[in-house]
């Protein structure tokens, strides 16, 4: 795993315009960065990332089966009681999932460690599945990268196939797609999935989440009053479950992608639950529920740094790195080691701290994609800070 400099394509911004990639620069800062790329060996990809990704997926599914039947765990996951049965039903019916992204700490030498599972509303999909693919094609065509350079990225192919699987499961020929207003990034991600759906032979309709209506027979509707019978939503289940239309979203017989059982996997409580079932697994970090902290022996915490994460944090918000000592866990008074944000009211979990590897001045995080249960590629984010947030840069990669 190496970080290599490369000349950016001369016309990439023009191409971004033509292909509708409108969020390559956000809040005045570069998000897409092709002044460098990461280089992996095939062994690093297959042994260290692809296999663990599929294995962890199976471990996560094991946890879902357990949590569905366990009221105490459902409470620890802070899932509102009205959704326990719908989650169990959705799990029993094996409602198909579309995609997830596992975030890993990986340096090319040691086993990848799972930081979290973005199983419900992962973004950076377009730039992974399409835009970094195009970057490689262009650079190979121009002779800037060798002809045998490959990329771990079968996302687009697999997304189209999985959308066909979903269409077959529900017997659908059209589908709604939804995300929030006023965000180019989310709209771009959903547009990409609409393009994949078209390629899968599915007609696509779009509605903003805020515009969704409730029809006279309890159906959800779009702005044209069309019934939303099947819907991909780039909107987290933990929000939906706490909003006015939350119960309606279940009663309406709308089939959701992602299905509601994935709200178990996208929850940070997954991390201590995984550790409980598979403690010592080389790709897992020790993790505990906040309620377990008093039970933990002092030696378990000693000489360790811990990361305190809200159950529902997104994009690295409200994360804190803590030092274990005789008094328990204390904050490290350092601006670099905590982030602010609006999350945390539902509780926290604690995960053993493991630093992101540094390449130059950058902390590097690997996102490993799943489509259904199959590993489908990786994406790479860089940040100057130790906690990767939504403004960290996206860099392409190759396999040599």
């Amino acid at each position, binding site marked *: 795993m190496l970080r290599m400099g490369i000349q950016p394509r001369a016309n990439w911004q023009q191409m971004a315009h033509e292909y509708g990639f409108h969020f390559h620069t956000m809040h005045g800062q570069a998000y897409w960065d092709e002044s460098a790329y990461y280089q992996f060996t095939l062994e690093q990809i297959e042994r260290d990332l692809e296999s663990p990704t599929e294995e962890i997926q199976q471990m996560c599914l094991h946890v879902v089966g357990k949590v569905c039947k366990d009221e105490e765990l459902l409470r620890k996951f802070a899932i509102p009681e009205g959704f326990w049965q719908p989650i169990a039903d959705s799990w029993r019916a094996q409602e198909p999932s579309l995609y997830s992204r596992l975030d890993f700490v990986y340096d090319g030498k040691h086993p990848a460690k799972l930081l979290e599972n973005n199983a419900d509303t992962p973004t950076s999909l377009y730039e992974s599945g399409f835009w970094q693919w195009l970057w490689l094609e262009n650079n190979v065509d121009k002779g800037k990268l060798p002809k045998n350079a490959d990329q*771990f990225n079968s*996302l687009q192919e697999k997304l189209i196939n999985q959308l066909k699987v979903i269409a077959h499961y529900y017997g659908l020929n059209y589908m709604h797609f939804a995300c929030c207003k*006023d965000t180019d990034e989310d709209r771009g991600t959903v547009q990409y999935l609409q393009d994949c759906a078209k390629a899968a032979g599915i007609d696509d309709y779009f509605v903003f989440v*805020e*515009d969704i209506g409730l029809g*006279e027979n309890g159906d959800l509707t779009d702005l044209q009053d069309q019934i939303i019978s099947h819907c991909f939503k780039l909107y987290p289940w933990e929000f939906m479950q706490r909003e006015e239309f939350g119960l309606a979203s279940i009663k309406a017989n709308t089939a959701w992608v992602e299905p509601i059982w994935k709200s178990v996997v996208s929850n940070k409580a997954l991390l201590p639950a995984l550790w409980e079932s598979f403690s010592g697994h080389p790709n897992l970090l020790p993790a505990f529920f906040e309620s377990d902290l008093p039970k933990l022996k002092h030696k378990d915490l000693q000489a360790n740094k811990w990361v305190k994460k809200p159950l529902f944090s997104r994009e690295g918000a409200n994360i804190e790195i803590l030092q274990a000592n005789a008094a328990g866990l204390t904050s490290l008074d350092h601006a670099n080691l905590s982030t602010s944000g609006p999350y945390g009211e539902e509780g926290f979990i604690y995960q053993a701290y493991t630093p992101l590897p540094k390449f130059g001045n950058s902390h590097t995080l690997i996102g490993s994609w799943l489509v259904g249960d199959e590993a489908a590629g990786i994406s790479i984010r860089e940040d100057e800070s130790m906690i990767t947030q939504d403004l960290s840069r996206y860099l392409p990669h190759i396999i040599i």
Partner: protein
Amino acid sequence: MTDTSSQKLKQKRTRNIDLRSMRKAFSLKPITVGLAGLLLSACSSQREEAIVFNNLDECVSANPSASAQCEVAYEGALAEAARTAPKYNTANDCEFEFGPNQCQQVRTSSGSFFMPFMAGYMVSSLLSPRPYYQPMFTSYSPNSPYRYRWIGADGRDFGGLNKKRYSVSKSVFDKKPAVTRTMQRGGFGSSVRAKSAWGSRSGSKGWGG
């Protein structure tokens, strides 16, 4: 890595992406509008010959040997019209869009609503065992951009009423979402409003809104 065929087998990335289908804009600014439709039609290769009939008799007289299929398509289109036509709370709202006496009242368990009459139906592959069909609507209202135009249930504008023959993509006959009356909006999104500075603007008003 000299054997390219075995290397191809092991390829870890998507084999092929149709770049045309991923394009969202022309390189040079075109002088006409309506780009989305142009780009779409350039990609969809399968075209179907389709005819719009005003009523069942018109179909039967044009196809005396296929009167049974005419009837199947007509009944199917009527049922599809009931399911997918735009629906309004009052006769006034409906007539504002479709014109005087162009709307019917439909009673349901929870009240009643108004929807336009089916003005015709589009048929393709009439002589096959399973003809394609869809209901067509039109407007006689001076307030409507759909005045004297053939309109699909989803608001798609096919052309003027005097045009009966079309070459269309097969997908125009795909089953469309059912339409109902919306009682309330805005039940999603409060978490986002609470957790970020994103404001919520009202969206563009849609057809039948």
